[in-house]
């Protein structure tokens, strides 16, 4: 029996988890200590971010976390109150420097594409080109093909395009000037689900072919994990964690990040050495930050229903979603070794957890199941 995985960790063959190596990759964008307030509200509270040449970074966070503001600082639409921003080694914003948006060689694609409604698709793409006439027309055709659109679209008006086409034209327009850095501000969020995946794939492919350093801002964690080499999780105006998609998903730095990036099973646990004792037994934890009472985090796909598993659970109820079923399982309390003295703070366990399974028939309420846990857990210091 194989449990289904909804938010799969990235398959290593599709895109290797990227860990920056300062030895051979140069830093393209450097943001340090960026702060910004609007009318007394501090939106950015000191942000440091490094993006390597040619790589893709996703800044992911809930709305209001400050991610769009950070993007606008990098684009040059706003000036930071403090901190510096450097592009390709040149300081473009800081106490001593200010390079306006139009001189930054930064491409920008807004949420709704922001195509100029009074210009045709071709004129939109030509807008930033230094050349005119035949050379420009040829380049427009080239760019449209780059974003998988027929060059005949050049004559159309933006209003005649679908949302996905508008986004692709906006990308072609931004690529026309061969920017060093491409900023994408939630460019897929206005598209419906099917179109979103297709457009995202085209955009991602185009940008990696062009070798452009890219920053994507999104509130969709699945989009961030699938699109980027590096994910920066933003919360309350700060970057809570930066790392490869695999690392931030499997080893989130705190509980809020864990829950933001995907479904998480959080259990009370007792840390002893490198084992976390909980209702699921002893789970190995790499480099636990503390000992004693902790919260243990596992991803639902790490918990599998299996015959002969050592952990017992009883099905409480299920939610049927078609290809998969969410199964709520009542776990047994933490097994205590009768010969060992028990710490009064030690948790008792016996939580109800949610996991997913493909077989809806299997898990009727009341069924006794045996479970096993795959891989390591992550622990966070205890908080009430």
């Amino acid at each position, binding site marked *: 029996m194989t449990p289904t995985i909804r938010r799969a960790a990235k398959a290593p063959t599709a895109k290797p988890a990227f860990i920056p190596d300062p030895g051979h990759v140069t830093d393209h964008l450097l943001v340090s200590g960026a702060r910004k307030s609007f009318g007394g509200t501090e939106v950015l509270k000191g942000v440091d971010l490094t993006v390597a040449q040619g790589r893709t970074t996703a800044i992911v966070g809930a709305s209001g976390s400050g991610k769009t503001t950070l993007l606008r600082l990098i684009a040059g639409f706003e000036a930071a109150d403090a901190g510096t921003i450097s592009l390709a080694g040149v300081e473009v914003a800081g106490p001593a420097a200010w390079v306006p948006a139009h001189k930054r060689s930064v491409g920008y694609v*807004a949420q709704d594409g922001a195509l*100029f409604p009074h210009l045709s698709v071709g004129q939109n793409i030509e807008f930033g080109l230094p050349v005119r006439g035949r050379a420009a027309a040829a380049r427009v055709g080239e760019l449209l093909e780059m974003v998988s659109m027929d060059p005949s679209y050049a004559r159309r008006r933006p209003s005649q395009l679908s949302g996905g086409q508008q986004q692709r034209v906006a990308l072609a327009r*931004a690529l026309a000037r061969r920017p060093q850095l491409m900023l994408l501000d939630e460019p897929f969020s206005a598209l419906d689900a099917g179109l979103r995946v297709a457009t995202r794939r085209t955009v991602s492919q185009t940008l990696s072919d062009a070798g452009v350093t890219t920053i994507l801002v999104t509130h969709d964690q699945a989009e961030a994990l699938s699109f980027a080499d590096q994910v920066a999780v933003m919360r309350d105006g700060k970057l809570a964690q930066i790392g490869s998609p695999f690392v931030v998903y499997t080893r989130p730095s705190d509980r809020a990040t864990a829950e933001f990036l995907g479904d998480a099973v959080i259990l009370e646990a007792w840390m002893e050495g490198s084992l976390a004792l909980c209702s699921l037994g002893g789970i190995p934890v790499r480099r636990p930050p503390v000992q004693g009472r902790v919260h243990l985090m596992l991803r639902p796909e790490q918990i599998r229903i299996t015959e002969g598993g050592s952990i017992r659970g009883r099905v409480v109820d299920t939610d049927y979603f078609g290809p998969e079923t969410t199964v709520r399982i009542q776990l047994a309390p933490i097994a205590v070794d009768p010969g060992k003295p028990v710490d009064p703070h030690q948790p008792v366990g016996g939580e109800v957890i949610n996991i997913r399974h493909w077989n809806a028939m299997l898990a009727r309420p009341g069924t006794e199941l045996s479970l096993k846990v795959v891989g390591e857990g992550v622990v966070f210091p205890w908080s009430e």
Partner: protein
Amino acid sequence: MSFFQSTTAELAPGSKSRRRAAGGRGTRSGPLAVVVLSILIAAFSLLPLGYVVVMTGNAGWDTIQKLVFRPRVGELLFNTLALVLITVPICVVLGIAGAWLVERTRLRGNKAWAVLLAAPLAIPAFVNSYAWVSAIPSLGGVWGGVLVSTLSYFPLVYIPVAAVLSRMDPALEQSGASLGLGPWQVFFRVVLPQLRLAAAGGALLVSLHLLAEYGAFAMMQFDTFTTAIYDQFRSTFNGAAANMLASVLVLFCLLLLLGESKTRGNARYARLGGGAQANPKRLALGWYQVPGQLFLAALSVLALGVPLFHVVRWLIAGGAAIWTGSALVHALLQTLGYGLAGALMTTVLAFPLAYLVIRHPGPVTKVLEGVNYISSSMPGIVVALALVTITVHNVPAVYQTAVVLVAAYALLFMPRALVNLRAGLAQAPKELDEAAQALGKAPLVAFVKVTLRLSAPAAAGGAALVFLGIVNELTATLLLAPNGTTTLATEFWAFSSEIDYAGAAPYALLMILLSAPMTYLLFAQSKKAAGQ
């Protein structure tokens, strides 16, 4: 004074632009240069109000007592109050009834009626008065004033109310019906409350027009504050008496604004639901079709038929003799010249404030907008009085020059430009400007190629409405026009004052012909504005 402060109040600045208020290296309340410019323009627009306040303050209590508390003022007070209190309710009832018939019933020919009910705005009130006086020479007094001004001004209620009705979410009426209300109950308990803002805005405009109108009432020798100030000014030039009357008139205007803002309450910026696809249910009229048609026909005959008939009658009676070529061409060219110069100047002056309102909403912008709202409600006679006195005493070099007249037009018609520019700039979101900057255009180039380009059609629409206002402006033009300057309105006035009704007819015809397309534009725009 403007048409459609009311419909436009619904064009609230979007929450999006509010959220992204601060931009670039400018301050939170907008680029410093634009803010300073807007403050200067607002200060300029406060001139008439400031003049009245200062004059009243300087006059001293004894003078005020002597000049204000006297039988003559009591008579003017009675006339003006009676005029407003009778005309405004009639206009509101006519406007709402007409709008409801046209927009919400299966009235035959409702598309044509929709235009016909707005059309009286193309006929200046003083031309309407001229037609009615030539039809009924004995017409006058309060009832004469009520008749003519009702027929001239009811479209000011009709247009915004129709715009709101045509866009009202039918779901609310359906909810009303599902809660057990009959059609009449739905109208009074669901529809009518939603028309409150539009109707109150329209009523305010009618009231301000009534206070400001000179020509229509002077034609039938019905005295209001405005006609009295004019006469006083003509006889004594700069008498304290004219100033005192003006301050009473201004007080009235301010009270009206206050009253209207109380009606609006916090709902001033209430938006109509944008997303809902409005497809309102129309009521089958059945046998009520006949009285409905008769009502609208009677209204149109009185408001359009009578003035057009009499203009044509005088044209025929006058024959070829009244087409005194050079004078007519002179007046037409002067009118076009002042109209274009005034429209251009007003649009340019309104731009900084419109820009701040859309791109940098905030406390400073709100104050500036409020100043503009109040100062633009000053009657033409007060604006003229203020500009004459200020230029004579402080800048004699420009006294009785075209500059002062154009400035007066800008003061009078700024809101028309402002309202349209606001709508236009809302069509050019900041994000487009930023997209252009990210594509390598310097901020100024981006602004010209994107923001200015996209708001140009709306700016042109606003300029056209200012032009319409100038073509039909009489009071301020009579007082401020340089020697030798004649406009269609002043020439019309000169002829009809000498009871040469035939001689005046060609000027009336030209004013109506020039106004008709602009009135249609205004009508079309109000529909669009309510939908945004």
